[in-house]
């Protein structure tokens, strides 16, 4: 059975509405949404293929930790433990000015908000930005 979910194209800022067609838990096709959409049933070539990179074999599927210059797979528990420890230590030694946080214009509003909250309330820095200038 195929069903589709209405969402927003992940590329440029136009915000075209797309239907992601899902079969057996995989995105198999993209079509332009017609109702309640700025694009009214049209879509560019990138948008028409928006589902394709979702299941790319190159997707990262597990946390990685670098040891002696080489990445190895790790659990979330271990990876987040290391990040928290190192961040805490650097904050204690050098303060918030030692952090730089790059949020993302590809991440959702809610995620950008939490990055700002994490930078300011947890890491004690205003050094947060994203690629608005690029």
């Amino acid at each position, binding site marked *: 059975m195929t069903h589709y979910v209405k969402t927003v194209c*992940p590329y440029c800022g*136009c915000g075209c509405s797309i239907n992601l067609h899902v079969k057996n838990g995989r995105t198999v096709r993209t079509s332009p949404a017609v109702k309640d959409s700025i*694009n009214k049933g049209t879509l560019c070539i990138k948008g028409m293929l928006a589902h394709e990179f979702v299941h790319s074999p190159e*997707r990262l599927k*597990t*946390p990685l930790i670098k040891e002696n210059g080489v990445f190895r797979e790790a659990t979330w528990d271990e990876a987040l433990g290391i990040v928290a420890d190192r961040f805490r230590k650097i904050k204690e030694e050098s303060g918030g000015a030692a952090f730089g946080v790059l949020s*993302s214009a590809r991440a*959702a509003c809610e995620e950008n908000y939490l990055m700002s909250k994490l930078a300011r309330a947890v890491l004690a820095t205003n050094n947060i930005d994203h690629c608005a200038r*690029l």
Partner: protein
Amino acid sequence: MAGLAKTMGAGAMTNSIEEITESQVLFVIGSNTTEQHPLIGSRVIEAVKNGAKLIVADPRRTYLAERAYIHLCLSPGTDVVLINAMINVIIEDGLFDENFIEKRTEGFEVLKQDVLQWTPERAERITGVKAEDIRRAARIYAGAERAMILYCMGITQHNCSTDNVIALSNLVMLTGNVGRPGTGLCPLRGQNNVQGACDMGALPDVLTGYQKVTDPNVREKFLRAWGAEIPDTPGLTVPEMFKAAEEGIIKAMYIIGENPAVSESHLSHVEKALAGLEFLVVQDIFLTETARFADVVLPACSFAEKDGTFTTTDRRVQRLRKAVEPLGNSKPDWQIIVELAARMGYNMTYKHPSEIMDEIASLTPSYGGISYDRLEGPGIQVPCPHKDHPGTPYLHKDSFARGKGKFIPVKYTPPAEKTDEEYPLVLTTGRVLYHYHTGTMTRKIDFLNKKCPGPFVEINPVDAQKFGISNGDVVYIKSRRGEIKAPARVTEKIKQGVVFVPFHFAEAAANYLTIDVLDPVAKTPQLKACAVNISAGGEKHGDN
């Protein structure tokens, strides 16, 4: 955005995509709209079919330029001169909107005096655009009842980006083309959620809704909501962060969903900065060029695997909906941030992104009326201050966000790097239709790779002949900062003296060449102009 904030008080597209087809004149400057914002590009064409006149200012003969009523083929970085000369003509001919200027603006007399010097003839010598064409364009723009300006990185990625935007605002206010449907000044945002990331305060000087970190009342409000002191001085922008990292001031970085190792200017500096960090965490869906520098890589899931909202270039907050389960052990970015915060002893309790949006609405006047139950339909355009507010299709209706609109005369600042004997050509960078930003996503897609497999450099036939280059030759492009290799596309679609390289391709990253000079206010890098030379490499490239 800094320019718009100064003149009108709000840094966003003033009008809506929907209104493009209502305009009688469209002035597109520094935007290859058809390839970068295909939907908007098609609306511009639709408007032209309906009888709108299209003016395009661009050093390249883009798809829209070919279909324009007038194509102003200017030299990169001379936009201020072109716009000032258009203003000069409009004032000279008495085509300005006296009523609008009187009621809604301040500073007109100063502007009027200042632009006297910018005759179209003087502008022709600097921009390379014929004085007569400048006059025609100015008269067409000023003669319309409803004219809209669309601009993009060709305006903002310069050492004078703030001035470029201020010059455009002057033109808009001079002719009263703002505060009504089908008019306005519209920066096109290149990424699906740039507007949202800005609105959410992923910026060094502001919290959500552009509330300044320097304002004690704002800090007090967030202290109460977040239970933590907000540092009171603005932080560093991306290019400044990499400088600080190189100097050892920044020791740790946390980078999500960005690939600065390809997208930033003057890449060799960025690579040095990343390599020198004490600790680097990268959170992404692929092992990007940037992630390779990381100590820890955290796997995020893609847009298809999570709920959330994106805010479009025309300020519309839309729902992103989860279609499939996260791949492998990947997690949504918001969940990773929540878990990391918890491990650092800071409690964030959200079961779903809708609860995060409720918190955003409670702290952000322009998002005050946004909640997930209202986003089921076409979304809502911010500002939307309360639950009963329908949203705002166009800004500055009865007054500007800053009260009166302000005319500010702007001086011409030439690009920071001039061409000379050694580096005689101007390099400008951009995107192509088939790829997106650093190619992290699109280069995984076979069809798009077939359509545009790799890097290239566009060069005018006259220059090609001068440097002994034929179509398809692999050539070396060199600046004072680096060198890349790419096949040449000899085409009349690019102005003489200018070459173009797309920045999608890591193997010939245009940003090894670009200069890391910044606009003094907006801190935008001058990606759209630097001096290069080009030489034949001897090889022939296949069918590029």
